[in-house]
């Protein structure tokens, strides 16, 4: 019975999603939420049932029998669990978010997407994996589009890049099938690992085809352009899901296929740089580059959702670097950062959605001072950015620390420098978000803004608790990694509930958190014994003796928010940041012209003859070549 649960958690959401297309909107969101509870419950019971699989066979013309297999591996279960937990939280958030005024009709599609996600994490063969992957691409395209022209453009952009990746993956799967004669993922991994020594060119081709697919999905360089459009234009409550879970499919893919291949390859088979096989070193450099680009772009972005989308790009860079180190510490760090990113970026996007829900603004400089009216949202954002900046005692520090330890182990100091740059830069843009949205002057337009509705607040509070828990007790998360690492053929890492051990030192996060609490206590004592304090109005500021209202300067104009880092803009003018985008645009224009050509041949009735002639010539040419 239990193994029948596997197709249920994949197919049930998809079918129900199709069914829901004809139902009223409000009901859809309730079904979505309730089904997510069921799914999360089922997924969390799967773990204790041990290894299981569900096989389904059919015959494909020309290739023989196809075996489709769904199964639970430690890695898959881990991703399944965190994604279902996060989805549950986000669906709770959406329940309040989609009221009459803000409602979107994405619930059925989202439910199908959840099914596709479960499918990706459960697939044991390439056919199921590819079907789920395609389903995921299509549903997310329509969700990002959600009926708005500007959003649909972003969706197309996203889909074009991901389509490119999907095509590469299809070619890779086809090549792999020809080589192994099987659709199974695990046999593909073994064969490719062997091929790396015997048929190196072939193996590298397959690996790079898959890598392109995964990089495109995870928005690593050179595919770092799509999140800023897709995340920004997607429905606000969906952005959290997009950034928290969907950007991790690529990471999962890398962990599923690329990482085990290199782990199974004996050392010395491939030339290595700094103790890392050179393809992985290239991946590390590309990831570090992604981090730097994402950071610099985020610093100068004025749209709050775009800013956080660039921040997502930067964080995926961290994860990529962790993977590329090739050590068990690096893999653990990458997975840990995946979880952390899911929590803190989920929290950040949730709080941004709450802000948008209450104010309807997306440009940061038009906001300000919301901390005083929306404290829970503010604290979620605050803890989110503390985690994102990698400051103890929150979870982000632990995973960043592990990534750096992995780098120090391999002495990849230059990559580490790039990451440190990204990490310091993260401070700049995160603080900018904090100040411009939540601190500073509260505009009179938003004086009557209320805290987010109860369910939204509740899911944000849960996210805060999770971030704190993972920060103070890293073992809660890191303890789960060892069986995944062992399954991938790596050594387990040393970790306890309180501490982690890296290559150069070990760290006790609980100790750090408690001494921080002690120090805050000391300061609080000083604060209490100090003189009496009085609360003044926000506009009662030092203004060289002038009353700002005399100069028609209200809170809106007195809020320093627009073009925040203008003085240092010149420092980055030498960076060719726009090159990739220009390249894509040129490609896009070329494709458009090609499309126009085809349209002009086929659509125009008078040219039908031409297309017939062309077709005949093509057939003759193919025949001659054969």
């Amino acid at each position, binding site marked *: 019975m239990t193994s029948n649960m596997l197709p249920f958690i994949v197919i049930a959401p998809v079918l129900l999603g199709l069914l829901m297309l004809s139902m009223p909107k409000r009901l859809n969101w309730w079904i979505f939420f309730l089904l997510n509870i069921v799914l999360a419950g089922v997924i969390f019971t799967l773990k204790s049932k041990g290894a299981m699989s569900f096989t389904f066979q059919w015959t494909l013309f020309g290739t023989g029998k196809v075996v489709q297999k769904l199964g639970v591996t430690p890695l898959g279960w881990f991703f399944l669990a965190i994604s279902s937990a996060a989805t549950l939280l986000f669906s709770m958030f959406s329940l309040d978010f989609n009221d009459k005024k803000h409602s979107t009709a994405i619930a059925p599609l989202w439910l199908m997407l959840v099914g596709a996600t479960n499918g990706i994490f459960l697939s044991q063969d390439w056919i199921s994996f590819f079907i789920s992957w395609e389903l995921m691409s299509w549903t997310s395209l329509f969700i990002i589009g959600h009926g708005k022209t500007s959003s649909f453009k972003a969706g197309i952009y996203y889909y074009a890049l991901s389509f490119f990746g999907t095509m590469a993956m299809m070619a890779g799967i086809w090549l792999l099938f020809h080589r192994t004669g099987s659709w199974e993922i695990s046999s593909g991994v073994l064969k490719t690992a062997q091929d790396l020594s015997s048929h190196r060119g072939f193996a590298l081709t397959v690996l790079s085809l898959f890598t392109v697919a995964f990089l495109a999905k995870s928005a690593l360089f050179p595919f770092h352009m799509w999140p800023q459009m897709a995340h920004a234009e997607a429905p606000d409550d969906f952005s959290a899901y997009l950034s928290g879970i969907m950007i991790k499919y690529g990471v999962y893919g890398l962990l599923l296929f690329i990482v085990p291949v290199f782990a199974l390859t004996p050392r010395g088979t491939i030339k290595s740089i700094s103790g890392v096989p050179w393809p992985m070193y290239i991946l590390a450099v590309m990831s570090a580059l992604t981090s730097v680009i994402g950071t610099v772009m985020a610093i100068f972005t004025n749209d709050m959702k775009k800013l956080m989308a660039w921040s997502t790009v930067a964080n995926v860079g961290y994860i990529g670097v962790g993977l590329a180190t090739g050590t068990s510490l690096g893999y653990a760090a990458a997975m840990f950062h995946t979880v952390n990113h899911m929590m803190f970026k989920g929290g950040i996007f949730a709080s941004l959605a709450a802000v948008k829900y209450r104010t309807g603004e997306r440009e940061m400089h038009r906001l300000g001072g919301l901390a005083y009216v929306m404290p829970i949202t503010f604290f979620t954002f605050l803890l989110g950015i503390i985690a994102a900046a990698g400051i103890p005692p929150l979870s982000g520090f632990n995973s960043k620390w592990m990534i750096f330890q992995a780098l120090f182990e391999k002495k990849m100091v230059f990559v580490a420098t790039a990451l440190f740059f990204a990490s310091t830069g993260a401070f700049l843009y995160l603080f900018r978000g904090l100040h411009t949205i939540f601190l500073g002057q509260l505009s009179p337009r938003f004086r009557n803004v209320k805290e987010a509705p109860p369910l939204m607040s509740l899911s944000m509070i849960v996210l805060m608790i999770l971030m704190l828990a993972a920060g103070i007790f890293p073992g809660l998360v890191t303890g789960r990694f060892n069986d995944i690492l062992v399954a991938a053929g790596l050594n387990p890492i040393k970790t306890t509930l309180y501490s982690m051990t890296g290559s150069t030192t070990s760290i006790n996060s609980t100790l750090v958190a408690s001494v921080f609490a002690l120090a805050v206590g000391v300061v609080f004592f000083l604060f209490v014994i100090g003189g009496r304090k009085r609360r003044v109005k926000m506009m*009662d500021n*030092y203004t*060289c*003796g*002038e*009353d700002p209202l005399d100069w028609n300067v209200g809170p809106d104009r007195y809020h320093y928010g627009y073009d925040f880092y203008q003085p240092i803009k010149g420092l980055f003018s030498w960076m060719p940041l726009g090159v990739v985008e220009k390249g894509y645009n040129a490609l896009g224009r070329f494709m458009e012209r090609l499309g126009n050509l085809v349209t002009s041949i086929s659509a125009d009735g008078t040219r039908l003859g031409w297309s017939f002639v062309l077709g005949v010539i093509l057939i003759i040419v193919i025949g001659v070549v054969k």
Partner: protein
Amino acid sequence: MEMDNLYLANLREEKQNMWGGLVNYFRKRSMWMLYYCTGCGAIELPPTMTSRYDMERLGMGPMATPRQADLLLITGYLSVKTLKRVIWSYEQMQEPKYVVGFGSCPINGGIYWDAYPVINHLEAFIPVDMSIAGCMPRPQAIIDAFEKLMGEIQEGKAIGYKRYEKHYDWYKKNQDAVLGRTEAVLKPWNDPFASNPSVDELMALEKGESNV
């Protein structure tokens, strides 16, 4: 008139507080000043601050904003427009706060006593703890005044801020009389161009007048 001697009350209060004397010591040894460069007196401060007279050895130093400062220096004459800013800044300062007026102008208007934009008595608008006579006072006089002020702080005599709090109505009335006027003092002016006429209208008007 009700006679309430704030100074004696303050002394009585401080006698009861065993830490009072100690606190006053810290306050007098660390006076941070906000110098309001209104007039000529500002030029006497650089020699007072720099190597020759070195104000910093008394624990005094310039501060950037009224929030941080203890001591407001009114260095010279004070125009009405500045007065508004001075009051604004004084009210932004945190207690205890002291005011020192430099030269004759804050005392009685000095050589500007009959000028239309310059106020004559600073005491009528904010409480002044110490005035330095002279036009302008030399750095020695300034240092001397600061030392006297320190003595007054130690003795609990420099209580201008308490007076301001207690008699705020009186100060506010004076401030309003000067700053918030609603009618002309001598003779109201009737602007003949109050309706903002254009050039053509003015020309036509003049032509008409000359014709008449």
